[in-house]
């Protein structure tokens, strides 16, 4: 573990402050426009101006998207796609159900789940559905091709919605919530109800247990090129090494940006080996992985950082918090 560095250099003067008036539950860049998703159904699109649209009548339960569309699932039973100009399209609606998870695939495909049922929406053609053994806790498209990792109680199912075959099941006892593919598609990793991650090496089904966190991991991201998996849940950013084909087993994780407050959100720079870390007190740092050098981006204000996202070109970072205080910083 590295010792806490002296006062880091600061870019807080470049932060554009936004007061969004509600807890931010998700954030993505649509080109140059930052889309902040608020827990109570609104989306605030920020470029030179702020545009506010009501995507859901009720709570937003999950957020995904690509660089063109923001996908949200709500407790109003709707899956909504919102573009940078504020245009909204309801892709699905089932009254009385909650849309727990949404995921964006390559070429505009969409997946979502309500309870135990996962649905796949191709750009053209019929919606495909599959019932899993228990409620879907996480949903993620493989980086290439039409294959979904579906996390649920007892493990992860790998589902080819266009094939008739039964999904391949990766078993591990416990409740799996978030799920992520490594960019090279060699690994699938889940966040668990316990304070741990679990991973599978797809080539041989090898297990990877990543534990030691003081609290549940709610945010994770692969760094540029997939060399590290950066995670929240501890009082430093924990980065598991994924560069070798064995994955992180038998290796120590890197621990960056240690503080006396827990990391609540992480986001990996799309090109450089840099991660943004948001903490439970609202502070945000940018950290270089190679030497742990830190730059302060946002001073603490007491509200946990709930969302971080880099612009596609890596030239800007968006920050959202539980209090609705948010920010944009361009480099």
């Amino acid at each position: 573990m590295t010792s806490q560095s002296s006062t880091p250099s600061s870019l807080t003067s470049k932060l554009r402050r936004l007061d969004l008036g509600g807890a931010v539950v998700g954030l993505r860049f649509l080109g140059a426009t930052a889309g902040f998703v608020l827990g109570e159904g609104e989306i605030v699109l920020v470029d030179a101006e702020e545009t506010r649209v009501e995507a859901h009548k009720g709570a937003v339960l999950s957020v995904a998207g690509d660089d063109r569309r923001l996908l949200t699932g709500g407790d109003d039973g709707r899956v909504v796609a919102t573009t940078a100009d504020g245009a909204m399209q309801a892709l699905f609606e089932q009254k009385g159900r909650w849309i727990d998870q949404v995921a964006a695939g390559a070429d505009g495909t969409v997946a979502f789940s309500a309870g135990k049922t996962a649905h796949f929406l191709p750009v053209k053609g019929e919606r495909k559905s599959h019932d899993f053994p228990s409620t879907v806790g996480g949903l993620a498209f493989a980086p290439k091709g039409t294959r979904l990792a579906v996390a649920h109680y007892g493990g992860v199912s790998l589902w080819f919605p266009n094939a008739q075959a039964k999904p391949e099941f990766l078993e591990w006892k416990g409740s799996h919530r978030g799920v992520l593919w490594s960019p090279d598609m060699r690994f699938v990793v889940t966040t668990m109800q316990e304070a741990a991650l679990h991973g599978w090496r797809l080539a041989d089904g090898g297990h990877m247990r990543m534990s030691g966190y003081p609290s549940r991991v709610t945010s994770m991201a692969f760094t540029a090129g997939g060399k590290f998996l950066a995670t929240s849940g501890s009082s430093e950013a924990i980065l598991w090494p994924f560069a070798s084909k064995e994955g992180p087993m038998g290796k120590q994780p890197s621990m960056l940006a240690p503080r006396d407050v827990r990391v609540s959100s992480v986001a990996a720079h799309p090109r450089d080996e840099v991660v943004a870390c948001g903490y439970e007190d609202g502070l945000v740092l940018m950290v270089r992985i190679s030497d742990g050098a830190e730059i302060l981006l946002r001073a603490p204000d007491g509200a946990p950082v709930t969302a971080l996202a880099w612009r596609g070109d890596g030239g800007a970072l968006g920050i959202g918090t539980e209090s609705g205080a948010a920010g944009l910083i361009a480099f």
Partner: protein
Amino acid sequence: MPEAASSKIPVTVLTGYLGAGKTTLLNRILSEPHGKKFAVVVNEFGEIGIDNDLVVGADEEVFEMNNGCICCTVRGDLIRIIDGLLRRKNDFDGIIIETTGLADPAPVAQTFFVDETVGAKTALDAVVTVADAKWLKDRLKDAPEAKSQIAFADVILLNKTDLVTETELKDVEMRIRAINPFARIHHTQRSEIAIDKVLGQGAFDLDRITAIDPDFLEGGHRHFHDEDMRSYSFATDKPLDPDKFFPWIQELTQREGANILRSKGILAFKDDADRFVFQGVHMILDGDHQRPWRADEAKVSRIVFIGRQLDAAALEKGFLSCVA
């Protein structure tokens, strides 16, 4: 009286065997002119006749936690639902969870102690069990769930009292008392009850553990000696040694936790001016110093266990061996 804990959203769990009157009670709570709004979690989606804006269907998914403790089960669906409800934080003042007649209340209760997010934003207020005065006795014989629901309760509505005689009512109340002498029992017809006897009970709030006064009806204890689900209460006026008590209670709940449904205690430790209170659900214990003992108060340590197949003699011996 706002307290630090009152910023958490209170959660009431309604249990009761099929047909006892849970849904009637739920509708009464919702329709009273109390000016409060509730989010209601029901066990099956589309359940008819619940008149409320915010009704959510639960899937009754019971999960084991990977912490090596077999009785440490939680309701995964509730974690998800409460996470979702918390995003509409201004829309309601409390959460009411109606379980199925066959549900074990323990995983529901444990969810509020095991999940960090849920525990930080909500607080379990009480387990309220609706029991059918006419049929409860039979259910206690043939349905283990009915027994757990009585054993687990903080408040019991002994409902449909108009369908039984005075003698039958006394008899069924004695059977309840043999299992759970601590719950507040209310006699009701058509689940009619003042809302303040059901909500705002603070049964899991350490600050509100005032006294442990078992209400053993005369003869009840002896009469139903063969009950496998029972409660035991032990007391001593000699101060306890914390270095003996904590290892004992931890070892006991680790070993016997599957059989101990609820536990509660008010303790006087040696050289300690404060009352120490604790409460537990199976293996999960929560305890703290509460307030100084008052001068007019007898410094008696009292502990209670509700459970099945407990060895009373061993429990008593263990407890008394904690005397300083």
